[in-house]
């Protein structure tokens, strides 16, 4: 399935990705190939097949409702540079 450069730009925007100009053509071709593969899957008749929640035929394991985690804030925040008053700082986003 042909993919236009503009479509790639739209998908990148939706995925919040910033793609360097020298990589766009390679990516466009990769995605085109992926879409061709998807077309093959879409061509299959699945009318009689029940939707599958998981390919593993076993149910979900449950855990008891117990607090097992301790405060690891210091360790977890050591891998980020931008924290203040215990909060992670990110570029301002208001919805």
């Amino acid at each position: 399935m042909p993919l236009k450069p503009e479509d790639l730009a739209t998908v990148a925007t939706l995925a919040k990705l910033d793609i360097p100009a020298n990589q766009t053509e390679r990516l466009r071709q990769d995605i085109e190939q992926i879409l061709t593969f998807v077309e093959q899957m879409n061509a299959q008749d699945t009318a009689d097949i029940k939707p599958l929640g998981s390919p593993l035929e076993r149910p979900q394991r449950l855990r008891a409702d117990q607090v097992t985690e301790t405060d690891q804030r210091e360790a977890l925040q050591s891998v980020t540079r931008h924290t203040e008053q215990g909060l992670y700082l990110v570029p301002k986003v208001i919805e």
Partner: protein
Amino acid sequence: MQWEVVIGLEVHVQLATASKIFSGAATTFGAAPNTQACAVDLAMPGMLPVFNEEALRMAVRFGCAIDARINHESVFDRKNYFYPDLPKGYQISQLDHPTVAEGHLDIDLEDGTRKRIGITRAHLEEDAGKSLHEDFHGQSGIDLNRAGTPLLEIVSEPELRSAREAVSYLRKLHSIVTYLGISDGDMSQGSMRCDCNVSLRPLGQEEFGTRTEIKNVNSFRFVEKAIESEIERQMDILEDGGSITQETRLYDPDKDETRSMRSKEQANDYRYFPDPDLLPVHIDDAYIEDIRSQLPELPDAKKIRFAQEYGLSDYDAGVLAASREQADYFETVCETSKDPKLSANWVMGELAKWLNQGDLDISACPLPAEQLGKLILRIKDNTLSSKMAKQVFELLWQDGGDVDDIIEAKGLKQVTDSSAIEAIIDEVLANNASQVEQYRAADDAKRGKMIGFFVGQTMKASKGSANPQQVNAVLRKKLEG
């Protein structure tokens, strides 16, 4: 044109589990930022979610309480969107196979009738973190303590027809989840949040009009006001021949209006798909029946029992049964006082007044129910007049202690000794000879008003301790001789 209002509510209820839905981090409200956000909640690479059995149990409990179909297999899906307080880039939720399917609850309307409201589904999902936008030099601060807290999202059918009905539905839901003990229902802390879908259609038309969704309304009062202002806005547009844009709106309580947040075109495409990190959840009939058999008495059943067992009016029974704590409190008062009507009056009257003044929930009531029961006993055996009982109530409220000790210490015993009352009255009559003469000369209609003067004087002379009924009777006897 006459318009019909169509409202459907999506209510997020925070489940009262000790740990999160997919991790062992604590869910306690108000902890220091990010001290309850573990590697799973932060979406560190390689972390896997493991489902909390208590969250499942609570969802099924709710399903049983609203007489819903419970799915034997439920599947977790990923709902994809980008926001900094959602570290994984997706929320784990349920789309096509929620734990709880169709159910219903009944609401009481203002005209005294009941209306059944359908519940489409109730699905389990995780909450996101919190973003703080102030005071961070143009940046946002992210607290992920709330990320992963279990939520039950309860979706109603679009069967509510006014803001009032929506609030009744929400109150009923609140009452049920708190009765079940699956949530503390504290709206001020976000334990219950509501999205309201509102549309209008010409009366008699079957097809729905275009709807808007008001996001995250967090109090009963705001739900009513937000819906009312949105109805008014839509009606103005439609009456002017315009059309409604499908969009998400926010309610601004300060301006009492809703404003646009994002339109349908800007809406997220959530790209739902089954979460490969989680397997389908299987439950059998025995599991469901076991939970059903352990359901507590629910508000509707309790209301009926209160009316029958205690002879209360439907209204009083409904008010008392609305919250489990209040119903339990009332029953304890009743057990001690053996007088349901007087108990109901005190719980709904004086007690409610003091709770309101202190902005307290009944669960934080400083006055033990046994003491209120005892206070009512002392009214019944004539130790206290109701006025004195209010004084004792105030002392109990402020300082605690025992009813009888307070009566003793403050000398608040009511004088019921008739010779003592007669002596006081004789003195009052002797000191007010001219009023006595006027009374005796007056006709019945005037006497009815004039007796108040003598009752007042007698109560004053007895420093409020004389039994008012006795004072009245003795006065009439002596004056009319």
